[in-house]
């Protein structure tokens, strides 16, 4: 009996040992405040994570599908609502992050503000501190700039809100936001190297700050925000742009490869790796290869590529938004893809273009057409007869490969700087300089389009079309037509698709067909602020007019 007693007693004692503190537990896979803010390497990790705030474009639903560049087949993200001018404070939440940016933006702003608060007193060297603060100031400025372009003036928040505070805060004006961004960027620039060393590419640099500042100032000078056409703003923009010209960047010879790997034209880009990548190749691939063809380039975009020989647009736009071929341009409607701007071939897959060892077939019944009968996901076929080529890596098939795309998403590149400069100089009345920089872009060795010699309003149109073509699908068009204040004209035009019938004699018949009728109201120059945000602010946030 005694034995049993001892055995039981010892079992019980072991069981109850330390039972007093069993509730004092810590997370096993998370870090604490103390861990993070006393360790410079963890703080650097914190900075790294803030880069996800930048809205890169390798999405299934690209910004081009909210303009006359791309057609979104499924309308999953309210593109048709926006295109019909039916966007409102409720359905604005259905837009993809790059256009429904409010929430993402501010949660990242808080993240960055938290760093500014908590890193005070952290054991950082001067170099470390400058590097981290510089990067974060650039990122925060970028977030504010993107907010500004979407919504107009937004509340500038630099403090860290906690629970149970008074959250009412008014919107700052567009000008206040511009000034805040520029000041911040000047400061960030002073903390960062002009160009990051090779082993740090991908991080914000002084030049990235300058490029952002230049774009913010160019937008600020543009008609939508500068109704009185204050020349000082154009001047200021031009000055900011100038600082990047003839410095560390140059135009790449091959247009198509700019978008596939790191190169000297890139001022700032987001890079990708095998483990940090997207499904872009699959969602944008041709349906005949198992791709989803989610974003279909529109005829409207195709028609904006000039004829290589004449430098003229192939078609004349008519008042109802449809196109009439311009015979003087050299355009042959029966061979619509011949003799075009080389950038067309580098950006768009059309019927007959060879890609991944196979001709694209978008004619009715062709392999990449929805009436194909040879099997496959024909319901994913393009509805415009075009597929995307720009950004896509030809060596990666849409499906079956474990290789993932690592093309960089470019936020700023040298060609934009040149076009920005051409635009600013034109608006300042310096047409020679404007033409010079415009033609610089056109003279890229793989492009070599005829020089522009126009002037006046025609030159303005040429500059704008050059921007449309050179920067096609790079998330510029949506903001450009707005800041130029031409959206009430351009964004009311119908979206056009191509229908190709292959006759029995193997000849093809091309018909342009209206795909979608758009609408645009003056209120649409800015996106509505989500209704819930206005309501939650208890009246301190004012809705954009018209919504």
């Amino acid at each position, binding site marked *: 009996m005694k034995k049993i*007693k001892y055995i039981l007693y010892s079992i019980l004692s072991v069981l109850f040992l330390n039972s007093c503190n069993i509730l004092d537990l810590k997370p096993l896979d998370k870090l604490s405040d103390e861990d993070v803010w006393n360790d410079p390497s963890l703080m650097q990790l914190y900075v790294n994570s803030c880069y996800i705030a930048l809205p890169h474009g390798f999405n299934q639903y690209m910004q081009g599908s909210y303009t006359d560049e791309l057609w979104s087949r499924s309308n999953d993200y309210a593109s048709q609502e926006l295109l019909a001018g039916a966007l409102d404070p409720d359905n604005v939440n259905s837009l993809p992050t790059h256009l429904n940016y409010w929430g993402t933006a501010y949660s990242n702003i808080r993240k960055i503000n938290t760093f500014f608060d908590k890193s005070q007193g952290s054991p950082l060297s001067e170099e470390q501190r400058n590097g981290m603060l510089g990067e974060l100031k650039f990122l925060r400025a970028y977030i504010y700039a993107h907010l500004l372009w979407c919504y107009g003036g937004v509340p500038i928040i630099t403090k860290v809100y906690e629970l149970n505070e008074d959250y009412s805060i008014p919107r700052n004006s567009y000008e206040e936001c511009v000034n805040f961004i520029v000041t911040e960027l000047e400061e960030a620039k002073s903390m960062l190297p002009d160009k990051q060393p090779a082993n740090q590419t991908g991080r914000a640099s002084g030049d990235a700050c300058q490029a952002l500042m230049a774009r913010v100032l160019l937008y600020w000078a543009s008609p939508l925000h500068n109704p009185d056409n204050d020349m000082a703003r154009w001047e200021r923009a031009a000055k900011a742009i100038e600082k990047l010209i003839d410095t560390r960047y140059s135009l790449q010879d091959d247009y198509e490869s700019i978008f596939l790997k790191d190169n000297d034209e890139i001022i700032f880009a987001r890079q990708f*790796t095998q483990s940090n990548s997207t499904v872009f190749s699959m969602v944008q691939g041709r349906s005949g290869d198992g791709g989803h063809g989610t974003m279909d380039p529109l005829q409207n975009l195709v028609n904006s590529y000039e004829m290589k020989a004449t430098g003229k647009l192939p078609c004349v736009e008519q008042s109802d938004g449809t196109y009439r071929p311009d015979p003087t341009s050299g355009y042959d409607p029966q061979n619509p893809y011949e003799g075009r701007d080389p950038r067309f071939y580098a950006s768009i897959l059309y019927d007959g273009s060879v890609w991944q060892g196979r001709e694209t077939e978008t004619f009715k019944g062709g392999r990449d057409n929805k009436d194909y009968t040879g099997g*496959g996901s024909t319901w994913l076929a393009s509805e415009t007869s075009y597929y995307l080529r720009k950004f896509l890596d030809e060596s990666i098939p*849409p499906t079956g490969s474990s290789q993932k795309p*690592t093309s960089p998403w470019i936020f700023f590149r040298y060609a934009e700087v040149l076009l920005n400069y051409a635009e600013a100089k034109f608006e300042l009345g310096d047409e020679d300089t404007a033409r010079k920089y415009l033609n610089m872009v056109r003279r890229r060795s793989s492009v070599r389009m005829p020089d522009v010699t126009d002037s006046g309003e025609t030159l303005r149109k040429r500059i704008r079309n050059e921007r449309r073509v050179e920067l096609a699908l790079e998330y510029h068009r949506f903001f450009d037509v707005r800041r130029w204040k031409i959206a009430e004209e351009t964004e009311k035009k119908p979206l056009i698709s191509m229908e190709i019938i292959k006759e029995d004699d193997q000849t093809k018949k091309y018909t342009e*067909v*209206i795909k979608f009728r758009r609408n645009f109201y003056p209120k649409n120059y800015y996106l509505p602020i989500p209704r819930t945000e206005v309501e939650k602010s208890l009246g301190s946030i004012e809705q954009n007019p018209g919504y």
Partner: protein
Amino acid sequence: MNVIQNVVKIKCKSTKFCGTNLLLVLSFIFLTTISANAQTGIVNLKLENVTLPRLFQEIEKQSTYRFSYRDADLTGKEPVTVSVKEQSLKSLLTGILSKRNLQYQVSGNKILITVSSTQSPKSTGKKEVSGVVVDDKGEPIIGANIIEKGTTNGIMTDANGVFSLTVTAGAQIQVSYIGYLSQEINVGNKSDFQIILKEDLHTLEEVVVVGYGTRQKSTLTGSVSSVKGTEIMKSPTANISSAFAGRLPGVVVNSRSGEPGGDDASILVRGRGTTGDSSPLILIDGVERPGLGQLNPNDIESVNVLKDSEAAIYGSRASNGVIVVTTKRGVKGKPTINFSYNQTFAQPTRNPKMADAYTFASVANEIRIREHADPNTQPVMAYTPEEMEKFRVGTESGYTSTNFFDEMIRNWTPQHRTNLSISGGGDRVNYFLSLGELKQNGQFEGSTIKYNQYNIRSNIDVKVAHGLTASLDVAGQYDSRHCPYYSAYDLISHIFLYAPHWQLYWPGTDYLQPLRGDQNIVNMINDNAGWHEIKNSKFEGNLSLKWEVPWVKGLALTARGSYDARFKYWKTFQTPSYVYNKDGATGEYVKRLDGMGPAKASLQDRSDMPSSIYLLLKADYSHSFGDHNLDLMLGYEQTQTKGYYLSASKPEFESTSLPILNVGGTDKTKWGIEGYGSEFARQNYLGRLNYDYKGKYILQGTLRVDGSSNFPKNNRFGYFPSFSAAWRLSEESFMKNMDWLNNLKVRASWGMMGNDKIDNFQYLMTYSYGNNYVVNNMDVQGIYETRVPNPNVTWETSKTWNVGLDANLWNGKLGVEFDYFRSMRDDILGKRNATVPGYTGITLPDENIASVLNRGFELVLTHYNTAGDFTYSISGNLAFARNEVKFIDEAPAAEPYQVKTGNPYGSELYYDAIGIFKDEEHLASYPHLSNAGPGDLIFRDTNGDGVINEKDQILITKTDIPEMTFGLTGTVQYKGFDLSVLLQGQERCNVPMVKGKGNIYSNFFSTMSDTWGGFLQWRADGRWIPGADNSNATMPRANSANANVNSGYNTHWIRNGGFLRLKNLEIGYTLPKPIVNKMGLSDIRISASGNNLFLIYDSMRDLGYDPETNDYWYYSIQRTINFGVNVTF
């Protein structure tokens, strides 16, 4: 008594006390007394002037013996005064009884008291009858009363169940025994009787399992629903959770899926009372454990659901109700070996009724016409008139209609369950041992889905010494599940979206066509595209010691520890699979990779290793003084759980022959390795006091103090009291002479409970790894703030009132149980999404902000009767529960009718669809969305402002959780036959056929488009057609875009989820004893049963959906037909 006081003192000393003191005291008492030498049959008594029944009671308390006697034999006997120590029962009884002209017989643990000299007066007109009384297992019943009806003439059966009585010729004899149904028998000419008494399942003395103990149903003060294991076994479902439906009043059970190994039903007690986690606490043999659905139904003794403050003894986890599952234990007797085998055939209750090819093609052309935007050109039609004609005829290859649900889903899928159990017991050891096996296959044609489950259990009780019992319960489970790489949801969605004119193979070949996703469902259903192998092992062990302290009468101490460990191993191998393209020019078939898988196989291995240690120390004390009965329970409990997770993956396997991680691609940048860990602990103190006076006035009070590592130090302990009372009116003397009233009890209770199910460590500032970035073409790690901490986070609390009434009239001919409850839930954890603006950037933690009031009732009516060989029962139950959000974080609503506060939780805003715009004229006549056109739904301009926008949405207050549930059970027994029927249903609920807002798959049900894939015939019938007469159109037009005016949140896509179904039907036959005995067996029962047999009414018939689903792509719940045989040796 001293000991108890000590314990109480310690418990009261401080509120923030530490468990160890109490533990040590308890364990000390425990250990010092093991040496007490006692053996059964030895008693200590000190009684003065007590009646014989009282004496027997006292002896029963000290031993396992139970007395049987006739009241009449004991009345008028001289009172007993006795003072003995360590005396043998035998000598004690002989002495006391012989003086009073009584004698006793011992059989097993039964002691039968009879009058010493049974001299029956013999006179004319009398006859002697004799016989034997046995139970339905054939065991003799000792001490059964045999009375000549209308007289006091009677006798009791002896140790062999035998009786002999002289009665008047032509008399009736009544045979009765406690716990069994009485029988009346006409003597007639017969003089030798074999009487089988059936157990009375409706007896008041039914024992109900409550928190940390059991209680007689008659003295229960709370609301508890019970179902016996034998009832659960009637529903031959592989997953037992769905067998609760309709059997437990107040418990809402919905089967959402019938997938083998993934078919746990959703279970809610009294509906949903919170905006937070509303799942009930599930205890298996006293320990919170997952895997209720995977229990072996043969192991279950009972399932009890504590619905009101009866659950309060579980404190911070009790708010959503507590389900207490008790497994079987051995009882003293010879070993009983039971073997059962059930062969089951399963099929979907319903398959979606898809549109045929002609409808599909018509819709394709209608879209081309309706959406053609260019007035200058003609629409290019999808199909020419010639092709349309071919579709209409439907015989030519490529134009035929296939219903892929019929094609891909088997009509009957076999499954079976085998069980073997051995139970019994002797003087010292009782045992229950069982082994169960279950095998299920998937419903798909050519499917590789397989589910195997093995359960073992060994529940052993050992009487170590007098008053000391040790129990060791060990349960093990191993299950393995094999399924194709693509989930059942993927498969169903593909089948749903396959166009009806598609063909799986190129005509005349066995080459698979590339279909949706350039893949083919045939590859997805079998292992061609890869597979998952999921293996679960589970060990659950309980060791408990119970010691009835010899020198403190009525005191029992229990120590109990359990260790549960689970191991889940999950291997996923995705392999390339192939389809064929047909070359348009040459007509050749070209083999190609499918469009969804990789070119080379990839492997992922995952393992998950949660474990928990549970400890309970408990003291029970019961004492009676005069007519006052007192029970006190005090306890300490702690739980520690830990979890580890590990995952590794590699792509680019050159061959698919070795799915093991050391093979595979060598590019390390493509490898994936992950690991996580977690810890959690609880510490609880509990106490309960029960008091009753003569079993008439019953009071109960409980208090629980709960501590949880989920909450910050200063907020870690919560206090949960409860009070309840019952009054048994039927025990009052003024009601005693109402013969028809067997029981009448009113009950009332109030209790405070909690709900602590939230994410861990919300009170701490934490940072997680993630949001990596790329620098110089290489990954750099990131960390980010997980959320803003809430230092005040604590549990939800509920205050629950319950009043109830139990009545039993005319000996079970009418039983009534009624409960009304009102539960106010405060401090519900929720995020202040609606009032904290997004521009603060705060990632919100849970805060204790919301309040919900839940009210309802449960009514159970039973009728129970025996007529000759017929025994039958009918039991109907009806439960209603409706919650009302008293406070949630809600932004000011745009319109008063959109306010969610004050309505049931889960209410959603929908446009109110009131018709179809017939044409342009009609469109112009009523406000509409700017992108609406003819053929689109008309949304009601609710606020009448002439504009349709979100302000016109109305609040739909019915959710997918039914407010009303009901069940009706009927049983009939006739000789060897038994029949049971269960009807089950629900009302006041909706099935929204659109998914959550923002879900990109939300629209596949409502969109009707050839480009998006197949759709229901129901969707196409009555649709708006361009150019046709649409005056009677009831369905909106077809749309090419997935998200369109018609497809979003509107009332057109809400279906009523109410139904009534024949849930279960079972017919059994027990072979006659003589035959069975000749075979050397003791019992054979064969049975046939069906589950989910058919729906009596519902609103999903036209769609081909089971009304229990809440999704339009789901693995249908199954109708099963089962044949079983049960043999007892």
